[in-house]
């Protein structure tokens, strides 16, 4: 039987391998375990520093249970079925999709300018677009709501604007990431034909990202709706205002009813959003 033995080259000619091996490698292991230790110290310090009443924490479950049973149950469902409240729910829905719509309209060019591969100018436009998107994203939607209420007064305009800013940040980043992930082949081809950058976007980029953008759009609306339920708390319109009012008036049964209504609506919105995104993904 013919046998070919390939020589394991290294072992014969190299010096004997080290018989020593340590698991703790300097300095990588030091950084790793040092980091973990630091985090642990920080956590312990935090608990002390913040005066977290650990006893209250452990008793919490009993207290929460009792609290809910006494003061939050049964929820006053009739309250949330009143026409005034239902009107505010309708307002909330409108605010959410207006905010999402305007936000996305502005997020599309921002996403384009903020994408490293397709931005018209990497030195100026790109950083600015990224900065705008990140700032819009970093500021919490409630802060936007408060700011707009302070400038423009109570009402839904503040709410829609706040949601718009939020969506610009949210969708802008996702759009930019999506554009950065495209196949550059068609883009190159179209640029080679001398097409304008706008046409390149329309013919080479847009068809590739269309489905993903729709998915992002639906997701953005979903998240905007969740925020919309709460902006009213700060005076920006929608059902959140009823929440605040009833908390101030210590109408706990109404508060729980409102919370239930918020949960139900958000769950419905989430269901719609999941269904719509699945449809879009399939229709690809």
């Amino acid at each position, binding site marked *: 039987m013919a046998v070919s033995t390939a020589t394991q080259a290294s072992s014969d000619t190299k010096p004997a391998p080290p018989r020593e091996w340590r698991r703790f490698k300097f300095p990588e292991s030091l*950084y*790793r375990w040092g*980091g973990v230790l630091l985090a642990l110290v*920080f*956590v312990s310090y*935090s*608990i002390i*520093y*913040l*005066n*977290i*009443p650990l006893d*209250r*924490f452990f008793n*919490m479950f009993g*207290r*929460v249970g009792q*609290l809910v049973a006494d003061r939050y149950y049964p929820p006053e469902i009739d309250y949330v079925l009143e026409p005034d409240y239902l009107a505010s729910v309708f*307002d909330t829905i*409108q*605010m959410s*999709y*207006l905010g999402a*719509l305007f936000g996305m309209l502005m997020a599309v060019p921002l996403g384009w300018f903020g994408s490293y591969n397709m931005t018209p100018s990497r030195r100026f436009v790109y950083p600015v677009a990224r900065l705008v998107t990140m*700032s819009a994203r*970093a*500021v*919490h939607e*409630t*802060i936007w709501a*408060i*700011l707009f209420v*302070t*400038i*423009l*007064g*109570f*009402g*839904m*305009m503040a709410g*829609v604007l706040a949601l718009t800013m939020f969506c610009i940040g949210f969708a802008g980043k996702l759009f930019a990431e999506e554009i950065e992930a495209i196949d550059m082949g068609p883009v190159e081809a179209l640029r080679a034909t001398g097409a304008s950058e706008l046409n390149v976007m329309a013919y080479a980029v847009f068809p590739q990202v269309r489905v993903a953008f729709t998915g992002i759009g639906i997701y953005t609306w979903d998240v905007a709706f*969740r*925020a919309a*339920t*709460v902006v009213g*708390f700060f005076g920006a*319109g929608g059902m959140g205002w009823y*929440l605040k009012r009833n*908390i101030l008036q210590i109408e706990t049964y109404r508060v729980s009813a409102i*919370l239930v209504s*918020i*949960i139900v609506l*958000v*769950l419905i919105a*989430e269901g719609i959003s999941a269904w719509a995104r699945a449809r879009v993904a399939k229709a690809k």
Partner: protein
Amino acid sequence: MATAQATADQVERIIAARSKTKIVRLLIFVVVLALVFLSVKTTIVDDTDWARIGSVWNVLESIGQFIGINWSLVPNLWQPALETIMVATLGTLLGVVVCIPAIWFGALNITPFAPITYPIARLMMTLSRSIHEIVWALFFVAAVGLGALAGVLAIAVRSVGFIAKMTAEAIEDLDPRPVEAIRAVGGSEFQVFIYAILPQVLPVMVGVIVFEWEINIRRSSILGLVGAGGLGLVFFRQLNTFNYPGVTTVILAILVLILFGEMVSYYVRKAII
């Protein structure tokens, strides 16, 4: 000649078909536009107190009030900023602990009794993500009183959804090959878990935790608005005393904090993956 005529017919047909889709699209567009206008009118236009807003100039003036940094405030911001990060960190960690049952039940390949436990897990995840952190904070303030604990709890509960979902998905996507190998070597189920399953899941989980921690800094910074301490409280006070440059200063501080969080998150996640 026949073929030329045929092609001309085809062209006609294609143009007609494309026009039809174009018209349909245009109609849809118009309808949507009309709906939007209607919404805008009923919500913004009718609801807004235009008199109070005044002219564009007045609005610009209002905005102008915010411009400026209240430097004297800055030294007093360190402590609330520290509090904000602490609340975010503790909240995230507590959230991880709470996650564990949700993860166990929420991964189809390890859930103990799929028809019951899997829906429970998904419900937990959905509830956690659907309810706004402000609502959770209000709830916990009612339950445990004002202060950092309410904030920590609110953030913990809010984080469960995302962390559990991503980790459960990582577990469902497990590569079975190392699992087979460790079994073949004679390892016990525990060793299979430690050697084959954990090394696959842990990096994903830690990455997700750090990502959520970064987002939680953003959330923690505003929970002070409902009584949970930190920069949110400072923001609230500045607003109530109409100290608008102070408000701007706090917002900038929050942005700096978020930037810090993003940097830490970026480097830690790079080291893990």
